[in-house]
């Protein structure tokens, strides 16, 4: 039976082969042209094939050399941090920077198990005021400070 000796290499192989396939499949309609007259598909195709090669090399390494295991991802921080970013991205247009900043702070605080919520309220308040003063009034960034503004 074949055994995966280096899980990290297998993971890298999946990523590289995936990227190469995306490059090849979504690039298939791009004209390849010829060396004298390179089409828009020429360089992407070559690059995708090279990336594919790196992917296959990783497959080979995964089964031959002994390597590191893939550490289990910690879902909590990723989920909450990404959620905080996305919510901010949608919300800031509607409810303004002050409330979005506070919202982001609360969501980000959820990334830790041992969050002290009392402290977080103060932090949210501070960041909301500070960011509005600095970015909206200080640096004149184009985003509303409050809703509807």
């Amino acid at each position, binding site marked *: 039976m074949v055994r995966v000796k280096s899980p*990290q*290499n297998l*993971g*890298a192989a*999946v*990523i*590289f082969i995936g*990227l190469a396939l*995306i*490059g090849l499949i*979504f*690039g298939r309609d*791009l*004209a390849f042209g*010829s*060396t*004298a*007259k*390179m*089409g*828009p598909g020429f*360089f*992407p195709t070559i*690059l995708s094939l*090279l*990336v594919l090669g*790196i*992917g296959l*090399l*990783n497959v080979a390494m995964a089964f031959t050399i002994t*390597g590191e295991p*893939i550490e289990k*991802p*910690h879902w909590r*921080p*990723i989920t909450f*941090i*990404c959620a*905080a*970013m*996305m919510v*901010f*991205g*949608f919300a*800031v*247009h509607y409810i303004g*920077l002050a409330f979005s*900043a506070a919202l*982001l702070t609360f969501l*980000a605080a959820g*990334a*830790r198990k041992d969050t*002290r919520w009392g*402290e977080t309220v103060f932090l949210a308040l501070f*960041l909301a005021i500070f*960011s509005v003063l600095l970015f909206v009034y200080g*640096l*004149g*960034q184009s*985003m509303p400070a409050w809703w509807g503004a």
Partner: protein
Amino acid sequence: MMDAFTNLATGFAAAGSLQNIGFALIGCMLGTLIGVLPGIGPIPTIAMLLPLTFGLDPLSSLIMLAGIYYGAQYGGSTTSILVNMPGEASSVVTCMDGYQMARQGRAGAALAVAALGSFFAGCVGTVFIAAFGPPLAGFAQQFNSPDYFSLMALGLLMAVVMAQGSIVNAIGMVLAGLLFGLVGTDANSGVARYTFGVSELWDGVDFLPMVIGMFGIVEIIRNLEEKELDRTSIKTRFRDLWPSWSDFKEAWKPVIRGTGLGSILGILPGGGAVLASFASYTMEKKIADDPSRFGKGAIEGVAGPEAANNAAAQTSFIPLLTLGLPSNPIMALMMGAMVIQGMQPGSAVMTSRPELFWGMVASMWIGNLMLVIINLPMVGLWVKLLSVPYRLLYPAILLFCVIGVYGLNSNWVMMAMTTVFAIFGYVLVRVGCEPAPMILGFLLGPIMEENLRRSLVLSRGDPMIFIQRPISATLLGLCVLLILITVLPSIRKSRDAAFAGGS
């Protein structure tokens, strides 16, 4: 040589305005502010602070950005010395002896030697750029498309060889970066490539969401996964700061050696601060009368590498500013910022906008001066910052990252892209691919494609053109040589050993 001085005078006139000195100061302060935070190296620091520089005119924004870079680097050294927690690879070396010095009550001496050594190295580095920039840019004017293509290939290859971790994966990341760089409307045919119907991708993948996602956000997530570390720092007072006369006597030679070594290693594509500090440490240890003192608080082990990494930080601007070749990921960030400002770095900048080029060179010196000024008296403040727990810092850092992205283009799509790149970067780290080489490829992708196309048009499709032109042939020869050297086992071993010493 006289030319260099008149040019520098032009530069100082441009960079020395009150406004620009102000931006240099702000840049250094902000860079230090984020850079001292443990676990945050210069790449995430620059990525996070990049948006702040967008509203400024080109020269001011570059000055501020360079300030951020020096600040971030020096801030990392402060953390290394006081809490033994390197933010990035080039500070690892400083940890080895700097922290030991701090434990022996010589934190002040270590910090001061690092600051003064860096300042000296910065001065020399600036002169180096003034002296070598113009001839190199002149030489670059003889370059034709095939030569540029081969130069980029060599640059990317060297960056890969010097990268940490697996060489295969580093090559893979560069190639993936090149591919990402091609997303958007093809300049030649006007065809949209890999845009998946998203109109925001027509102009290509945006630089800012990419670097903030892959470096800034990933850094936050990675730090959250680790347990809150003990960040108690060693107390230091301002009056303890001045090194004794004997410290000076022991430190000045390593500083000069480190400066020389760093200046040279910085110019090499793929080189830069990390390589320079490792090389300097190894050299100091080798020539020391008593190598056993190293790792136990030898002042040479702080002075040499600190000077070397700062000198290299300066001179690594040379390939970028004269050839348009970013030699390491940090220079790629600088290049990205320049492109956003509407400049294409390369020999043309020096001839067409001399005040910009020389202003930036002058600002490097000013930035180094600022570092000494803000670091020696204010070290107490930075140390205080270290005692702010991470649970209060990361929401603030995250907020600044997202405001930066959102401020660039008030659009949730940008935020979605940042999130996608954050997840992508996180996965890459998990499978052992260091994402940093990707930005090099990303920036060079369209340029390489264009030069490849022009070369092949020139030769009517004959790829032999790359070995028929002497410059291109030489560069490709170096590529082959480099590959041979890399696969030879003995050199690989020493490369691994150099990095093993750091991690």
